[in-house]
């Protein structure tokens, strides 16, 4: 049988994978994708917990999260474009004008 714990653990693993992406990838877009993975991992928790508690709130929250994800993606990608215009690269390590 599949328990809530399974989903929670899965969610945790996905979340951790998402975080890893932030460090492993040297491409701004992939980093954004990693954050999407994290958000989705959370969504899994919401849906599973909603199912467990028998409430639709979990699902509704996922919709809001999706909205947020979309909004973030829009702004994030716009920023990526802006950065790319300035530097013609997507490597995060290229943007170290501001430091120390």
């Amino acid at each position: 049988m599949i328990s809530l714990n399974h989903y929670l653990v899965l969610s945790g693993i996905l979340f951790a994978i998402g975080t890893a992406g932030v460090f492993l990838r040297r491409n701004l877009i992939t980093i954004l994708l990693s954050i999407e993975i994290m958000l989705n991992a959370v969504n899994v928790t919401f849906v599973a917990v909603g199912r467990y508690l028998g409430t639709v709130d979990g699902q509704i929250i996922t919709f809001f999260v999706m909205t947020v994800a979309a909004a973030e993606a829009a702004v994030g990608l716009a920023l990526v474009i802006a950065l790319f215009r300035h530097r013609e690269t997507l490597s995060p390590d290229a943007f170290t004008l501001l430091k120390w």
Partner: protein
Amino acid sequence: MNTMAATIPIVIVVLSAIAAMLAEAFRHPGERMPIAGLGLIGLVGAAVASCFLWNTDATSFGVVRADNFSLFINIILCIIGILTMVFSNDVVEREDLPPGEYYALTLFGISGMMLMAAATDLLVIFLALEVLSLSVYVLTALRRSSVAGAEAAFKYFLLGAFSSAFFLYGIAFAFTIAGSTRLDAVATAVASGPSTTLALLAVGLLAVGFAFKVSAVPFHMWTPDAYEGAPTIVTAFMSTGVKAAAFGAFVRVFLSTLQPLQGQWIPVLAVVSAATMIVGTVVGVLQSNIKRMLAYSSIAHAGYLLLGIVSANSAGKAAVLFYLLAYAVANIGALGIVALLGTAEHQHDQLRDFAGLWKTRPGLAALMTVFLLSLGGFPPTAGFIGKWYIFSAAVQEGHYTLAIIGVLSSVVSVFYYLRIVVMMYMTEDTGVAARPVVSVPSMAGLWAAMIVTFYLGVLPTRVIDYALQSIQTIL
């Protein structure tokens, strides 16, 4: 009471934001339009509305609560907003910012901030957080010609998104134990249940989310870069507004909802607070860019504010409110002056740009000094009362070590505030580029900020009373 009343201030601000957008849409290229005036009207309206709502404890939709606590923060935010608007009128054009978008986003940001402090639902807090964050991200990148702006915005954005994922995960765990994201439900759940793993995870992750927004160590690293890269007026705005809103929600969630778990989170926040105070002050010592320096200063101030939360008593809560006000006024004043002296070509944000300011602009130099002294916690300014209040809250709870770290770090921070003063008063002007003229309204705004700073420093009784009233609802 389920009325719309509680949302009125927020709605007013949103409306003025939309009005600003529309105004921009109808603006002829090259035409000057007093969009700042629209914002001002909205903010004053919101402030007035907040005053009318005082003591009504209105609740709307079960998720927005205009209790005195949120109204106090509303007022702080309105002050921040009004000052920002006033300064913006001078700055926006000079800084080459698109006015319509700038004002609209600023006002949207303020509405998000107000909502964040007023929301009693974790989901709404999250959404409000996103509204204000996105506004601020965009504002940071608003000057399109600036690489630094884009870089700063992206760093801020990416880390913000990263941290809001953690925050969201925390909400998920809270949802798991409470079955709802309403704060009251969460409070009941944590009060009744033992401190389970889930509750601890929720506490930890929520703390991370807030700590990021208030730029506490080690979640602070975006702060200097974002503050430095953003247009100065935006730095002024976000360094005060975001902090006020985030601390509002932080206090509400941790000192009210999660109060039963305080044995769990106080040690963590205590360490964070100590680290924040130390890093914020120590690293600030060597900065040569004023915005960056003030960024570290704002980190340090976050540490002091965290100390208020760590104290977890009513003095601590009231102290956080008072401190936010004192800090906001002084910080926006200081950064406002930097902004008012800058142009798109010459940011006027290096330390040496301030050399000999008192000779050419004695008034501005004096105002800057007052703000810096307030930030440094010298009597008889607001900053001193704020620090004193925070530390007395900490001492009351026996957090002597933290208080001592706090006061010592504030001495170190004085060092770098004084570096600016040294530049302004004790160094000769070495041919800094011509500084633009500061308009009368901006000057009036600065003077008003100074008067508030002194008022709070000399006669803080009334405001402290308000602050103490404000925390009645989140006991």
